[in-house]
Structures are given as structure tokens and as C-alpha cells.
């Protein structure tokens, strides 16, 4: 069974705001029964104040799809429309204390239903701008379509290049065979032959000497953390972003995502990937938290 957070389970077992909403002036339908996920979001917007006064959902889908729908209605109730348009799929996932990478599309569907419902309220047409493929890299939640597109558009030839562009394959490496198959297929389309021998070795950060058995000194530990961040920095820069170590507090490591990474929809996935790498390198359980949370009090959650 999936490792769902307690919050996901709670919103699945006791979903909030279920059903049709009489008098709704914005309805967003996304997904379809063939995909295994379908979500209808109904909202009532006060036309004078632009505030979403009520929201209800009907969902056909798995536990996390139902929980994401429930979370979405809780997040947007009481929000102004313009504010609601800024809600990202990460906001939904964060509200639920995270989702497994295979289930991130449930939160994406929530955001899309919201955009569709608001477009419907405004009398606008809304077009979905993404196509979802099978998940290839589980560490960084990268799907086949995304990799295929980048391999095609940027003439990528090696797994390393794919990792540089998408982060896919930069974690546990189990998906390298899958990435090579995509490379083979797309390269064949453009009349090239994938050269398996050209795959460079994965560059591991320089291992630092361990202190006496039982762990590292604080300084060694921080150096090791910085070495890991350094090793993934080229990938982040490729996307116009960067990451910086801000604070280490026991098992919690605060990292500031800057540039494109700070606003990127994948920021929480990136952080998840960094966390995975750090755990592997340090050989202990740690939690990576965005540095912004260092200053903030815990988020207040409205239960309407």
C-alpha cells in the first residue's frame, strides 16, 4: 500500500465538501473515467467581492485523488479568485503533508480543476497545457512525455544529458534503462543511433573521511551536505535555479531554493530529490525543509 501521510488518509476517510453544489457559478471538469481519475469542482463566487464562498467536489479516483480534491476545496474556500489562481499543485500536496511521487498527478488534477472552474466562472475557455506520460524517474517525478520532448527539442544523446535537463536519473539510477530506451527511440526518429558506450560514469561527490565509527563530526557532516548540493548544482543551474545550505538543526536541513527553482512547480520534488541524495550520502534519516520555513510560524489551516 502507498505510504500516505495521516493527512491524506484523514481527507480520504472524511472527505470535506462532497457533492454537487446547487447554484454553482463555476464548474470545472477534468480527467476521464478511462484515465482512472475524474474530478468535478463546483464553486460559488460572490460576483461583488470575487470571493469563493463555497466549493464542493465529486471525484472518481484513488485515495489520493479524493484527498487532493477535499484539500483543494478547503484551501480555496474564502479566497479571492485572483488569489485562488495562484494555488499550485504543490500547495495542495503540501496541505496534505506530501504525496508519493506516483501520486503527484492527483494534485496536478486538482489545480487544473480549479483553473477550469474559474475559467468557467469568468466565461473563458480553458485549455490544458500538459500531457502526462508514464512515470520514469520516481526520485524526481519525471514522466516519459517530458523526457521525450526534451530529448527531441534539445537533441539530447546521453542519460547524463537527460539528467542535466530534467533531473531524471539523478537519484537512485534505477530508471537509466528506461531513459536509454527513450533515447534510442527518439534518436532513431532523427536518424541517429544511440551509443550505449558513450554513457559517462555518474560523478559522485568526493567521499569525505568518516570520523570514528558512529558518524561524522559536525563539520564533516556539513561539508558532506555541501558536497552533495554542489554535485547537483549544475542540474539546477541548467534550469536557471540554485540551492543554498542555510541551517542544519539536528535531522532537519534547511535549504534555500533560489532563481527559477524557488517558483518552479517542481520545487518540492527537487527538495525531495535532494533529501533522497542526502540520506544516501549521510546514511541517516534527515528532512530537507525550504529555508523560508525557518522564519515562519507553522501554517494555520482553516477547517471550514
Amino acid at each position: 500500500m502507498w505510504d500516505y501521510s495521516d493527512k491524506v488518509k484523514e481527507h480520504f476517510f472524511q472527505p470535506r465538501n462532497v457533492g454537487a453544489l446547487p447554484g454553482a457559478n463555476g464548474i470545472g471538469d477534468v480527467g476521464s473515467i478511462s484515465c482512472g481519475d475524474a474530478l468535478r469542482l463546483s464553486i460559488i463566487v460572490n460576483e461583488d467581492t470575487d470571493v469563493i464562498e463555497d466549493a464542493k467536489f465529486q471525484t472518481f479516483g484513488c485515495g489520493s485523488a479524493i484527498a487532493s480534491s477535499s484539500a483543494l476545496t478547503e484551501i480555496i474556500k474564502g479566497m479571492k479568485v485572483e488569489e485562488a489562481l495562484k494555488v499550485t499543485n504543490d500547495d495542495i500536496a503540501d496541505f496534505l503533508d506530501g504525496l508519493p511521487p506516483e501520486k503527484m498527478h492527483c494534485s496536478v488534477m486538482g489545480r487544473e480543476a480549479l483553473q477550469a472552474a474559474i475559467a468557467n466562472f469568468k466565461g473563458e475557455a480553458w485549455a490544458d497545457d500538459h500531457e502526462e506520460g508514464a512515470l520514469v524517474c520516481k526520485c524526481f517525478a519525471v514522466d516519459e512525455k517530458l523526457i521525450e520532448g526534451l530529448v527531441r527539442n534539445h537533441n539530447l544523446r546521453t542519460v547524463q544529458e537527460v539528467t542535466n535537463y530534467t533531473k531524471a536519473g539523478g537519484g537512485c539510477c534505477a530508471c537509466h534503462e528506461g531513459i536509454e530506451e527513450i533515447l534510442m527511440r527518439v534518436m532513431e526518429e532523427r536518424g541517429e543511433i544511440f551509443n550505449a558506450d558513450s554513457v559517462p560514469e555518474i560523478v559522485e561527490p568526493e567521499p569525505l573521511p568518516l570520523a570514528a565509527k558512529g558518524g561524522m563530526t559536525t563539520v564533516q557532516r556539513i561539508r558532506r551536505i555541501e558536497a552533495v548540493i554542489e554535485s547537483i548544482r549544475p542540474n539546477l543551474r541548467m534550469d536557471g535555479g540554485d540551492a543554498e545550505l542555510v541551517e542544519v538543526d539536528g535531522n532537519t536541513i534547511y535549504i534555500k531554493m533560489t532563481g527559477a527553482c524557488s517558483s518552479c512547480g517542481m520545487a518540492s520534488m527537487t527538495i525531495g530529490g535532494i533529501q533522497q541524495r542526502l540520506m544516501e550520502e549521510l546514511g541517516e534519516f534527515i528532512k530537507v525543509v525550504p529555508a523560508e520555513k525557518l522564519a515562519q510560524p507553522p501554517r494555520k489551516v482553516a477547517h471550514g
Partner: protein
Amino acid sequence: MADIYLDNNATTQCDPKVVEAMLPFFLEQFGNPSSIHSFGAGVGRALGKARKQIQALLGAAHDSEIILTSCGTESDNTAILSALKCFPNRKEIITTTVEHPAVLALCAQLEKEGYTIHRLGVDSKGRLDLEEYKRLLTPNVAIVSVMWANNETGTLFPVEEMAEMAHAVGVQFHTDAVQAVGKVPINLKNSKIDMLSVSGHKLHAPKGIGVLYLKRGARFRPLFRGGHQERGRRAGTENAASVVGLGKACELALEHIEFENTQVKVLRDRLEQGILAQVPNCFVTGDPDNRLPNTANIAFEYIEGEGILMLLNKEGIAASSGSACTSGSLEPSHVMRAMDIPYTAAHGTIRFSLSRYNTQVEVDKVIAAVPPIVAELRRLSPYWGENGPVTEPEKAFAPVYA
């Protein structure tokens, strides 16, 4: 922790007698069966006894036809790759669209490497077309691999007849029988089946032990080379305790095979009829007239399987689903798709698989638990109205994209 376990096609509890038989082989009789000294000799004798017990359940002519492996998957891979090595000029394989991934994923890989894979389709009840099979059977085929019983629906394939047909044109026949062994009477000495895979943990033995039956005279090449274990056909020190456990499990399975086909079947039918009588818009998938006695696969329309499983789990009931979401893929089970079960139902299929440990009290609890769970999820579904499915669900729900 689930109280009512109805997921025995996934794995089974070890029989306490199996565990009891295994225990001496951890602390006292830990020797290597290949050793000359007394530490090893006793273990060697125990393995010999287990081999006989396995032979008896399979109805094999010789105990040397039993090759011990680590699992069903290893047995499947060994069988298919052996045939390709034995018949290097034959570049075709016949299998079905509804095999276990242990066969399907290997065949997909072999296809990439240049082999031609013929995947026999099934009808809406999961049955094969033997005419199509006959047409494909040519001397270009290296091996036929067809499962005895389907893990999701329990539907049985006529493997004995198919083995005769393969034999008639000189093609090796392998069957993945991990779901059938212990539930269906098997008598390999009277069949033309060349190879057959067994998995211990499906019949109350531990995980990590399997068998490849190899008919005497059938050509074979090992997957693992090394020591002389299994007469050089599968090198690697024997998993002695698990082999002893599997032997005991086979003995017990033989004793209970009638029980499986009477008592367990009665419970399965009671469960199935109890649910069908109370829940609208659900149906049994597969071939109800020709299937394993312990398996019921029910499709609940307009809801999704993972939700059903989570709510069942909350009630202490363990089952499994063919929905996409439980596996993390976007497609529902390949078995449901192969039978052309509509998407409105394929995502909501639930497999209940019983064992000889289940009771009528448990079954009655499940019959009582299922209807409110289905009703609750339908309350959430945009495809379900006040009293039934919305008319023309695909039109009533108008997504901006699909």
C-alpha cells in the same frame, strides 16, 4: 493489521506445520547438503524427502524432474531463456496477453532484442482461441509459455491440451502454474508439459523458494552456472530450510486439495453471491464456470479500486485490485483490458482470494462490509446520481480535456 485475509493469490500465510518443519534447519541442521560430514548429510536427506513431497503434489514421474529455484519468476525466466538457448534458430515465442509480468516483461525485453512474440488474446470471459494458437504453432517457435490459472480472475487455461498440440509440432511447452498448484489436481507424468513453474509462498510455504519442473528428456540449458546443485541445472547452495518447508507445504496441499475444491469453493461462492445480491452495478470478471475454487474477481462500476481497498482495510479486510492506482501506472490491469472490460468497471475491480484458513464468519463479515463502502465511494463519484449511474456518463461529465 488486517483481521480477514482474502488476498491469498498475492501470498499466503505459512502453515504452522511448515514453520515447525523448517526450524531445525536454522540452528541444529545448518550444514551444507553437499558436505560429506554429518552436519551436511542430514540436510541432504531432508532435501531428498522434500523433493519427493513436491514430486507427489505435481504427479511427476521422477524426483529428478524437480529443480529448486528461488521463486516463480526465476522458474519462468529460466524456462523461457533455456528454450531460446536450446533452439537458437527459432526466433518466435507464443504466450498470452494475460500472463504474469514474470513472463510478459521478459517477452517484451526479448521482443526488443529481435524475437517475435505472439500474444494470444482472450475473449470477454478471459478464454483463449485455440484455433489461433494452432495457426501460430510452427517449427519456428522455440517455446510456448501459457499460465495454468490467471492470478487476477482465476480463469483456467487448457494447458494440458495446449501442451499436446505443441508437442505434436515439436515445440516445448512451459506453464506458469503458481496459482494452480495446490488448488487444481495436477498429474504431470500423464501430460506433455515440458516445464512448469511453482512458487512456494502461494501454497503456505515461505517466500523465496520455487520449483521448475523439467520433464525428463526435455532439452534444457541452465540460467545459473556454478556448483553441481540440482545436477548442475541450477547452481547455488540450496535454501535448505525453505526447501524443507515447501516439501511440507506440498504434502499438506495434497491432503487439502479436495477441501479447496469443496469447502473453500463454497465460501467463495457464498461471498460472491452475497455481494452480487446486494450491490447494484457489479459483475464477476473472468470465466465463472472454469476457474480456481478460491478466487472471485468482482468489478464495481463507476468507482476506483484503491479507494475500495483503503476502506476495506479500515474494516480489517485485505483484498487487492486491478486498478491503475494501486500499481502507480496510468492503465488499469492488463488482464481487464485484455478481456475488454469497459473502463467504467476496469478501474473498480477487486480480487478476493481465499484459502483453507478462511471461515464462514469472515465471509459473512465481508458480505456485510462491502455494500456501504461501494455506496460511499459512489456518493463521491461524478458518474453516480441519486439512485444509479448518471445517464451516458461520458457525456454527463464534460471534461475540458480527457
